């Protein structure tokens, strides 16, 4: 199909921060992203982080039901489908997190009384699922041409019992960790857009994770830019 440009940008990213007293090992897994792979949605993207893979599709700006319309903004809707089973309360909670993150960056006031729907399908889950969903949603929104004030990315940090920090943990590392923090950062000022955490941790550890996530987000944003450059340079 004409225009179905596929940007397969495989970049191995490694960020080694200087080891403090705890010596964190920071390295993100292998990333890959494909855009415009589905024909019906206005924008689509598939994001791979290691073995975790999420497929996202964006429809919009499109017609909105009168009961849901907002007079001066676009109505954003996020649907998250797990790999197996029916969506439950946990999915609803994640949908709310992703939706509020998208609402903070999407310029909804340019398309009042319309709806923008983001549909996410979990293809495989090997740790850091929510971060992968956020990245896929961002890439799909870019592919659909939805106006945004910034890009956003998701980063997961796992804190082990001895205090070491692991970025982008696998499912096994998440299970063994004392705390798992998923943070969404924006591309302009690296501010914290969304956070959801599991487990117990201290205030200082939170600041440490935030700093590590900000450093890691540099790599993710560079990856976004390079994959888009590669895609548009072919046309």
């Amino acid at each position, binding site marked *: 199909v004409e225009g179905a440009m596929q940007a397969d940008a495989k970049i191995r990213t490694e960020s080694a921060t200087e080891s403090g007293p705890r010596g964190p090992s920071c390295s993100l897994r292998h990333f890959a992203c494909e855009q415009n792979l589905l024909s019906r949605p206005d924008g689509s993207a598939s994001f791979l982080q290691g073995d975790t893979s999420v497929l996202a599709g964006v429809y919009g700006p499109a017609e909105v039901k009168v009961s849901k319309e907002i007079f001066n903004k676009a109505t954003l809707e996020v649907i998250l489908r797990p790999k197996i089973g029916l969506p439950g*309360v946990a999915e609803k909670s994640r949908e709310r997190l992703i939706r509020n993150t998208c609402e903070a960056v999407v310029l909804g006031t340019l398309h009042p009384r319309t709806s923008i729907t983001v549909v996410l399908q979990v293809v495989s889950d090997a740790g850091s699922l929510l971060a992968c969903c956020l990245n896929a949603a961002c890439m799909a929104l870019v592919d659909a041409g939805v106006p945004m004030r910034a890009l956003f990315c998701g980063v997961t940090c796992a804190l082990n019992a001895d205090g070491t920090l692991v970025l982008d943990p696998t499912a096994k590392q998440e299970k063994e960790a004392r705390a798992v923090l998923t943070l969404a950062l924006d591309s302009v000022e690296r501010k*914290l857009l969304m956070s*959801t955490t*599991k487990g117990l*941790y201290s205030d200082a550890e939170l600041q440490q994770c935030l700093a590590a996530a900000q450093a890691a987000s540099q790599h993710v944003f560079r990856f976004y830019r390079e994959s888009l450059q590669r895609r548009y340079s072919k046309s």
Partner: protein
Amino acid sequence: MAAGFKTVEPLEYYRRFLKENCRPDGRELGEFRTTTVNIGSISTADGSALVKLGNTTVICGIKAEFAAPPTDAPDKGYVVPNVDLPPLCSSRFRSGPPGEEAQVASQFIADVIENSQIIQKEDLCISPGKLSWVLYCDIICLDYDGNILDACTFALLAALKNVQLPEVTINEETGLAEVNLKKKSYLNIRTHPVATSFAVFDDTLLIVDPTGEEEHLATGTLTVVMDEEGKLCCLHKPGGSGLTGAKLQDCMSRAVTRHKEVKKLMDEVIKSMKPK
């Protein structure tokens, strides 16, 4: 005239107050509404608590029942929270299956229970592999005026402190459980998680304990759940405007002081209760 201005331009109306570092109801930016708690009011429940945060009213009732323990953890019991936002509390909720707000709140409470380890699930086991307690925690909102998560967490904590479980022994001959209603004991509450919610205005200003209107006008919300050692059980920030690390630090310090206030209030109420 002020009422007219408030209807037409609610955000501007609010900004006028925020410029003077206060809010329409007279509170400072870091001040909580009057918190009242009533423990043990529902006699048919094993534990109950009613919490009022200004106008927001939330009641939590806990019932304990028997169940077979999960097969992958035969020495653990269950704690099943459920937050219900009925049409009674606000005109925005309709009757029917739980809406998104209620589901998100239920998931939040489940996460707080799981992360803070408020009770050890092993304490709920009666006989490994055969019988254990399941605590059904029903949290119902009676009046929705913002900051529902703080009120629900406090109500849950107070109700759990009020729960008394009877002693259960397994009769060896019949294999049935025998309940001794005369001998009851309190649950072992290991930590006291307290939630503090903030609303972000215009991407810069942080106010504590938002009312319903303030939540509607805010550009983002943040809830911090802290236990007594200053450890964070949950940092729930569902999107909204970005925050820097320094702003987060301010939120943490406010959460620490709030924890002390809430703990003091709860201890006073429990001490003042007459034993059953």
